[in-house]
């Protein structure tokens, strides 16, 4: 169905964005794109299979994505406060 193809395309764009961009915040936004693609897939398949479970799973994915964004952004803030102007290339080591 076309919805599934659209979400596959969105997922591929998100993957490309994660691999190409170096600003950690924009990489995070591309991960959110991928999560939205998965949400769309779940809702579409839930509708096609006649089950409400697809929407329930999307509900939980939304909540977990919100929690993940909060924690991830606080990590980025904590790192970038120490060294200004950092991008993903500088974060090659976990030390520091």
């Amino acid at each position, binding site marked *: *169905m*076309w*919805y599934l*193809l*659209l979400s*596959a*395309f*969105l*997922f*591929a*764009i998100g*993957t*490309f*964005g994660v*691999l*190409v*961009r*170096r*600003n950690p*915040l*924009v990489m*995070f*936004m*591309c991960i*959110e*794109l991928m999560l*939205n693609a998965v949400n*769309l897939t779940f*809702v*579409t*398949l*839930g*509708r*096609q*299979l*006649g*089950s*409400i479970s697809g*929407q*329930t799973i*999307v*509900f*939980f994915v*939304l*909540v*977990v*994505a*919100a*929690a*993940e*964004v*909060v*924690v991830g*952004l*606080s990590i980025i*803030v*904590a790192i970038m*406060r120490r060294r*200004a102007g950092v*991008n993903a290339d500088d974060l090659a080591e976990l030390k520091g």
Partner: protein
Amino acid sequence: MELFVFVCAALMIVGGAIGVVVRGNPVHAALSLVLTLFGIAVLFVAQRAEFLAAVQVIVYAGAIVVLFLFVVMLLGVDRAEDLRTDSLTGQRGLAVIVGLGLLGVLVTAIVSGTDAVISRGTGIEGATNESADANIVQLARSVFADYVVAFEVTSVLLVVAVVGTVLLSRRRPKEVRPESGRPS
């Protein structure tokens, strides 16, 4: 009619997604993400998932993207990133290959599996019930009856996330000097 809605929403989604990947300025990328999120919410409504569309707009576009913009403004990273250079040689070409390969695998899976999925579809159970909040009632029955353990665990996760964030972004009263080793 549904095709028209789908095409408009798909244009919004793809345009926003390409905007996130291509724009150098993180603020522009966040605004493109909002466009994508609204497109996804439109498709949720088209698929009879109205509650999820509302939650998506409120939580994703209203809270998460605002949080992104807060962090962008706080850290002053609104300088545009240089997109013409690669950090590894040939990184962009390899990323295109990976993206296209992933897209090919997904499209193959969808096209070959679409018969099995369509033949089982009879519509959301209770979709013949045309009262305004049938979707919410169904979703609530599913969340609080079938998936109640997941619900409770998710609420614990939210508390953990909040506590962790407060700890991580706590500003220390004195700068920790690396040679002293004194805990803050």
